[in-house]
């Protein structure tokens, strides 16, 4: 583990190029945690996960143990695993799906046992053609090994798993849209309440939805105990976590680090992690947790990678993706591209999100390309205010899903930080960054 001596929960197996095969998985202790779990009662397994303080790794950071305790066990329940990873600059689930599908599946089987659920669906982003192949092969092999199917390892517990392909739609990462998609419909997020799929989920039955990385932690937690996991990290942010580092660093990549014990500065500059900014340029800003998160500046470098720590500083760890922008970066262009993403991916159900995203995109485009007007800056914030009243953090949500309120943060924070950059664009009639 870079920088601390925490165990590698996610990445221990990745040194081996064949880590995705059942042979390698079994050689490295695979499915032993499942065997152990099956000797415990379902409630005991759930208690270990609760004790681990495992925060969901999909973006919202909801405690897995608490989510599980909310599942209404009646009449038929499902477990759905979210492998739709499409948040800009997030690329850790992609790696886990291709490289350790068995570890994910073992987590799913143990979780299903703890929840006493007899069917599970693993939703894999459609663009992950190789990931789908590896996951399906892993599932086939797990069936033949007796780890899935009827009477798993002669325990009396039975479970079926289906690997389900997405087909290209960011919004399907939202858990209620994911369920609609899994039902064979357009990926429209559902109107709340009910707030939680644990009450009404897939096929209108109670459903637990968890992220792929969340699932991949479960075998370790069962093998080593919830307390051992909770001993890593600090506060509510326990264990290790995958961070996807990209942008202007020497060594972009997915890194596993112990939560809270490592800072953004470590992640970006440490030799064994990001290795510093390219060509020794200055840091201009960084995006700490996906396209929806407000940008941070150099003064935030020493913040620890912990959910509450980053939250209190005015942003979020979100999906665990960190994008580094050096001094040569045009903040208008960056904010424009992120806004264009939301415009393209808005599902169109809510007027402020559907109309506002396109309007914002067009304004940012014209500022970047020389057609900006001085009143555009107020107009940007006014439209943001119509999408998410007050434009503060955390954002107000008046739309059906959090995508709408995810649009303002990059615009508002880049404008706050780099207003002069915006003004130069308008005054000079174009982008000074070339």
């Amino acid at each position: 583990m870079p920088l601390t001596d925490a165990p590698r929960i996610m990445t221990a197996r990745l040194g081996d190029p064949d880590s995705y095969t059942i042979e390698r998985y079994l050689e490295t202790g695979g499915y032993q945690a499942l065997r152990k779990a099956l000797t415990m009662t379902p409630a005991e397994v759930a208690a270990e996960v609760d004790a681990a303080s495992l925060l969901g790794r999909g973006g919202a950071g909801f405690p897995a143990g608490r989510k599980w305790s909310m599942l209404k066990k009646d009449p038929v329940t499902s477990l759905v695993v979210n492998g739709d990873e499409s948040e800009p600059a997030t690329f850790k689930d992609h790696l886990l799906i291709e490289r350790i599908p068995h570890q994910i599946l073992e987590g799913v089987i143990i979780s299903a046992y703890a929840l006493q659920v007899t069917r599970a669906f693993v939703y894999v982003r459609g663009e992950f053609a190789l990931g789908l192949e590896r996951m399906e092969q892993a599932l086939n092999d797990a069936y033949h090994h007796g780890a899935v199917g009827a009477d798993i390892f002669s325990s009396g517990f039975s479970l079926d798993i289906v690997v389900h392909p997405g087909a290209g739609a960011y919004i399907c990462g939202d858990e209620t849209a994911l369920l609609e998609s899994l039902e064979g419909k357009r990926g429209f997020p559902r109107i709340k309440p009910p707030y939680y799929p644990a009450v009404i989920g897939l096929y209108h039955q109670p459903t637990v939805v968890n992220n792929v990385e969340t699932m991949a932690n479960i075998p370790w937690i069962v093998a080593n105990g919830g307390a051992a996991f909770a001993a890593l990290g600090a506060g509510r942010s326990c264990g290790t976590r995958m961070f996807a580092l990209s942008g202007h660093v020497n060594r972009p990549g997915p890194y596993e680090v112990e939560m809270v014990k490592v800072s953004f500065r470590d992640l970006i500059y440490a030799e064994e992690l990001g290795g510093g900014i390219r060509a020794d340029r200055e840091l201009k800003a960084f995006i700490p947790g996906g396209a929806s998160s407000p940008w941070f500046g150099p003064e935030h470098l020493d913040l620890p990678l912990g959910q509450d720590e980053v939250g209190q500083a005015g942003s979020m760890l979100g999906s665990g993706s960190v994008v580094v922008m050096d001094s040569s970066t045009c903040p208008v262009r960056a904010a424009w591209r992120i806004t264009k993403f939301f415009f393209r991916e808005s599902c169109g159900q809510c007027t402020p999100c559907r109309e506002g995203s396109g309007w914002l995109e067009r304004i940012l485009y014209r500022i970047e390309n020389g057609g900006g007007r001085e009143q555009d800056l107020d107009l940007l914030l006014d439209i943001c205010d119509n999408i998410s009243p007050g434009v503060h953090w955390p954002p107000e949500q008046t739309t059906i899903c959090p995508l709408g309120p995810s649009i303002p943060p990059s615009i508002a924070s880049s404008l706050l930080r780099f207003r002069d950059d915006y003004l130069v664009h308008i005054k000079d009639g174009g982008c000074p960054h070339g």
Partner: protein
Amino acid sequence: MSYFNATMTGRARQLVSLYPEPRSALVPLCHLAQEQDGWLTPEAMEEIAELVGVTPAEVRGTATFYDMLHTEPVGRYVVAVCTNIACLLDGAIELLAHAQERLGVPVGATTPDGLFTLEEAECLADCDHPPCVQVNHRFVRTTTAAAFDRLVEELSAGGHAEDIPAHGTLVRVRRSGGLRVDAGQIARERAAQEGSG
């Protein structure tokens, strides 16, 4: 059954049987149809509708929501260049401009020989290899204009049959395990649901 060929029909039936409700197989069946023909023909949508018990209009309405499902013909190779934030910071707009020039078509169009369709993609979750390019949803990792040109030449000459197969994200996905949970149980669940709903 008339649209899917014999092998595909078997796979289609298996897909439907995996789910408690047939409609869940709608998107996977669309992937199968694209594997057969490259795109979703009206005949494909009709047969999928029949297989999952909805109208063809519902199949079309659902399919058009998803970027990977094509209701019009596309080239043999769909080339997707990501220009989202991490790739943007590393020359993606420039690579996309180069791709348009090299292929001689704008984004969204297909080359006259029917070989290539060019798309501007959102983040493809491979941001540590920017700018990210996929061909038929395989990560090709051609991050420079020169590497891009080489790949286009090789594909034009019929290369990469192994690492860049034809359309259909399920083209090499085969299920051989399960379902072992009692089929009767699923039938009972369905009946209970119909009773309650």
